[in-house]
């Protein structure tokens, strides 16, 4: 693989990788570093190109692993950083508190960010990036059943919380 091929075949995926890394790390700089590292690894691994059937899924998988390593290394629990924001979507949400949520899109973001890691990852890959269940299985190294159950739980949690906020807002 030469640079021109790399530029044409691999680089266009960079934004997808960035979005996924950002979802996991919540830091644009860290997400950018992870994407750069993934791209360098793809370049170094080019001699095994024939072994990797789906480069995009391979890159996404690598992004996930590197992002999780980074999280572990910094011992920063992502859920802790949004704990404060989380209170507004908890079960003990008060009408006063929900009235503060003027931006509904921001509310949705907070609800999704408050999901457990696996649910958030599956929902992002399916609903934002539009991957098939099979691709999600290979990226997250899960079986089909686990992916479907996780997605079902994620979507329904989001739905319930949105309806609850909407009911309080009325």
């Amino acid at each position, binding site marked *: 693989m030469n640079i021109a091929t790399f530029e044409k075949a691999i*680089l266009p995926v*960079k934004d997808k990788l960035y979005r996924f890394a950002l979802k996991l790390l919540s830091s644009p700089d860290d997400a950018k570093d992870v994407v*750069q590292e993934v791209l360098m690894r793809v370049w170094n691994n080019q001699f095994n190109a024939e072994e990797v059937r789906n480069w995009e899924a391979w890159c996404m998988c690598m992004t996930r692993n590197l992002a999780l390593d980074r999280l572990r290394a910094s011992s920063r629990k992502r859920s802790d950083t949004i704990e404060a924001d989380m209170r507004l979507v908890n079960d003990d949400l008060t009408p006063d508190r929900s009235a503060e949520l003027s931006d509904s899109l921001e509310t949705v973001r907070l609800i999704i960010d408050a999901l457990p890691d696996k649910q958030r990852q599956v929902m992002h890959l399916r609903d934002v990036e*539009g991957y098939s269940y099979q691709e999600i299985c290979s990226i997250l190294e899960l079986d089909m059943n686990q992916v479907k159950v996780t997605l079902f739980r994620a*979507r329904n949690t989001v739905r319930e919380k949105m309806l609850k906020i909407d009911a309080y807002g009325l």
Partner: protein
Amino acid sequence: MDSEHIHRLLEKYWKCETTLEEEEQLRRYFQQSDPPETLRDIAPLFQHLQESRQTEIVDPTFTKKVLGKLATRNKATQRWLYNTMRIAAGVLVLVLAVWLIRIEVRKTDPSPTADTYSDPEIAFEETKKALLMISKSFGRAEEQARKLNLFNEAQEKVRQDDEPNEPDTRM
């Protein structure tokens, strides 16, 4: 697109039974049209998902930086390959030279150990002969060495006799 159809798609969506195309329809519907009252509570979800798709790396130099690093790494690999090839070529030339010299030397001075005996008894006799010859040579050499030693001793004695007696300085 009528809201009935969207309601049906949404039901499938919550059960995770929608295809990727149907999910795309939902996102597009909530992005483009003003949803009816019954769908308004769920619209922000699809709007958020659609909006999330637009997120990109904002750094305009990112691609340039990555490609620059790749080019540097590529050059380093090429340099490493070039140096390795140079060393390999040097070693090859050396091995070839040694091999050719060895062939030349063998041509001019055929090795005495080239022939061997196939019969063990003859080989044993020949070995015995060779060892006997070595032993004889050692014996002769020892005799010569003894003579030399005698000569040395006599020479030493003559030297001692020729030296004048030193005066006694103790008095």
